[in-house]
């Protein structure tokens, strides 16, 4: 399926093919300016003087839009999230991935951001597993198996990834379907396809494969690097995933990191089950034992499986001798903030700030930064709907992205009466 759409450039409306011809004649120093036209983002005020760019308010409003779209229904309805995820990342290694419109080439950018994504993924989903697949020369191959530790995947990404041939969406989906049918029924099955090509060469009817994936309850998401394709959109719509196309490298990073937090789970997709897990204790300092992962004698600093007493080096892992999943309580606690999310803060309308009856806090409750702009005019601020305390924009972003606790609600045992 060929789709000859042009890739949209950041801020400019130029044709793609013009750029390719022009690039060849440019000097190296000129090529850095072909994509980024930073002078276009400057603005002038009425008298013709340059206006300083207010990035902070812009950034904050973008952030709030994103947060609102992500959590509009979630906090209201307490939508269930799939916390135990089995995710396959499919990397397209066709010749389209060696294009240089992402510097230095698409595949290098993809490898870099997939590594960052894997670390973030295991940080937010410690009980989940990831596997890597590649599509090259029309054939899908497994790069790494499903595993719960980031190191093996990152090592595989560090190797040089050669790009050649065509890309085949159907072969990738068939392979993923085969692998994901073997996982336990309580796990959520997901695929993230990083697609650079504009076509797919399939041996059969891809619509059948899509229906098969839908029946196997696999949630497929695609991030395109070239242009929007109907087949990818159809695949994502059928299976309940998300489809997005990256405009440039920073946008790609944003899109891929959006897949790190657990997506809303469709309840029928995974059965609820009680999973038997072990909580090993740290071995005593100075004890010597043979560890089951490295097969050599080690001193101290390890964990003993509570069922078979084999030594493992790090958690979370699966005991190699008896197969028990071993975790520590902080690993489970890492996922609790998905279950108890905090409500987004509300923006304070400017009319409230000038109201003399309204007693305004002078400082942000979290960081004690002054909320007043120079000249005693109130700046931009947000308020927690539960405890009614004011926070500055930066604290708002930090609280919702990293901390997941409202300092105001946690600092008062009994809620504010007024």
């Amino acid at each position, binding site marked *: 399926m060929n789709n000859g759409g042009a890739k949209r450039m950041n801020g400019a409306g130029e044709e793609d093919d013009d750029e390719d011809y022009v690039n060849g004649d440019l000097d190296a120093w000129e090529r850095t300016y072909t994509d980024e036209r930073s002078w276009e983002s400057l603005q002038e005020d009425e008298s013709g003087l340059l206006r300083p760019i207010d990035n902070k308010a812009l950034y904050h409003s973008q952030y709030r839009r994103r947060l609102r779209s992500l959590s509009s229904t979630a906090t209201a309805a307490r939508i269930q999230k799939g916390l135990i995820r089995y995710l396959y990342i499919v990397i397209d290694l066709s010749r389209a991935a060696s294009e240089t419109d992402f510097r230095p080439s698409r595949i290098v950018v993809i490898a870099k951001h997939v590594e960052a994504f894997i670390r973030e993924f295991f940080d937010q989903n410690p009980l989940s597993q990831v596997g890597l697949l590649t599509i090259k020369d029309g054939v899908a191959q497994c790069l790494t198996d499903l595993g719960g530790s980031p190191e093996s995947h990152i090592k595989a990404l560090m190797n040089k990834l050669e790009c050649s041939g065509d890309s085949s969406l159907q072969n990738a989906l068939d392979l993923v379907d085969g692998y994901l049918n073997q996982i336990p029924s309580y796990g959520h099955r997901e695929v993230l396809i990083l697609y650079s090509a504009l076509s797919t060469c399939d041996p059969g009817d891809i619509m059948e494969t899509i229906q098969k994936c839908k029946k196997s309850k696999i949630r497929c998401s695609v991030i395109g690097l070239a242009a929007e394709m109907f087949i990818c959109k159809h695949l994502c719509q059928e299976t309940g995933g998300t489809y997005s196309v990256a405009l440039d490298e920073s946008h790609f990073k944003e899109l891929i990191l959006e897949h790190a937090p657990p997506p809303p789970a469709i309840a029928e997709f995974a059965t609820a089950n009680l999973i*038997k*897990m072990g909580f090993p204790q740290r071995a005593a300092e100075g004890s010597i034992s043979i560890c089951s992962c490295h097969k050599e004698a080690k001193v101290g600093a390890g964990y003993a499986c509570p069922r078979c007493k084999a030594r493992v080096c790090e958690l979370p892992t699966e005991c190699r001798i008896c197969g028990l999943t071993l975790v520590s309580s902080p690993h489970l606690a890492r996922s609790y903030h998905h279950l108890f999310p905090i409500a987004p803060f509300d923006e304070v309308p400017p009319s409230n700030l000038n109201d003399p009856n309204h007693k305004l806090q002078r400082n942000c409750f979290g960081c004690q930064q002054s909320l007043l702009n120079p000249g005693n005019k109130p700046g931009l601020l947000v308020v927690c709907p539960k405890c009614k305390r004011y926070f500055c924009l930066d604290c708002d972003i930090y609280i919702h992205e990293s901390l997941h606790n409202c300092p105001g609600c946690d600092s*008062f045992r009994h809620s504010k009466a007024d």
Partner: protein
Amino acid sequence: MASAPSKLYADDVSLVVVLVDTNPFFWRASSLSFSQFLSHVLAFLNAILTLNQLNQVVVIATGYNSCNYIFDSSSDLNQSFENGRMPVMCSSLLQKLEEFLIKDEQLSKEVPEGRIKSSLLSGSLSMALCYIQRVFRSGALHPHPRILCLQGSPDGPEQYVAIMNAIFSAQRSMVPIDSCYMGAQNSAFLQQASYITGGVHHKPQHLDGLFQYLMTIFATDLHSRSFLHLPKPVGVDFRASCFCHKNTIDMGYICSVCLSIFCKHHKKCSTCGSVFGQAQSEAASASDKKRKTPET
């Protein structure tokens, strides 16, 4: 939001955010009186400020009903040196502390007997982390921040999720949480906090010598800690407690939907209401889930 320590600033400049436990239920029953404790802490804070001209100290009080900022050494009000006196001397800090304690007591409502009288550690930890983020934002030149918890109250199980969130956020920003526990039992939360974030945890044997413990263990900056022999974590217990009996268990069953921990096989999850072994037909009911560790 990770922030690597800046190499442009001298290695040994630190910002210490001290969380002081002012829970009256604990101090009433403690062998060390609150005023003696304050004299140790004030001397310690002054010592930190003399170790390096650019060191900063922030004090946040962890009360029973509320938390608030008490002192900030970098604010303009505290910069004056009168007759060679130490900056962190009585006046402003003690005055604000007294105001805080009066207000905290006024917020008290009827407390049912038998409840664990814990202080609001999660609130002051969250405030400390927000302040530290502000320091990171202030530019490339900033001191290395760390948090020191002077805690005596027992752990409040209802704060478990909030404290773990704060610990993980501190770990990502590379902010160590040191803790000095002065209570009778052990504090599992503080042990875990110091272990996960790379800080030091210590429970002093003799509280009359508290100043000595603070100076030898908690006063050194992060860079110099690699040259010192500080108390190592012994026996940090990472085992979980089951939600049904609150016993610590070695092996248990986890609900795949809400990650609640049970010691025995159940037919239904008491937290989220999922029935095990069959596909669910509706989303989890919101009524069971409250923002604390589920206590049945």
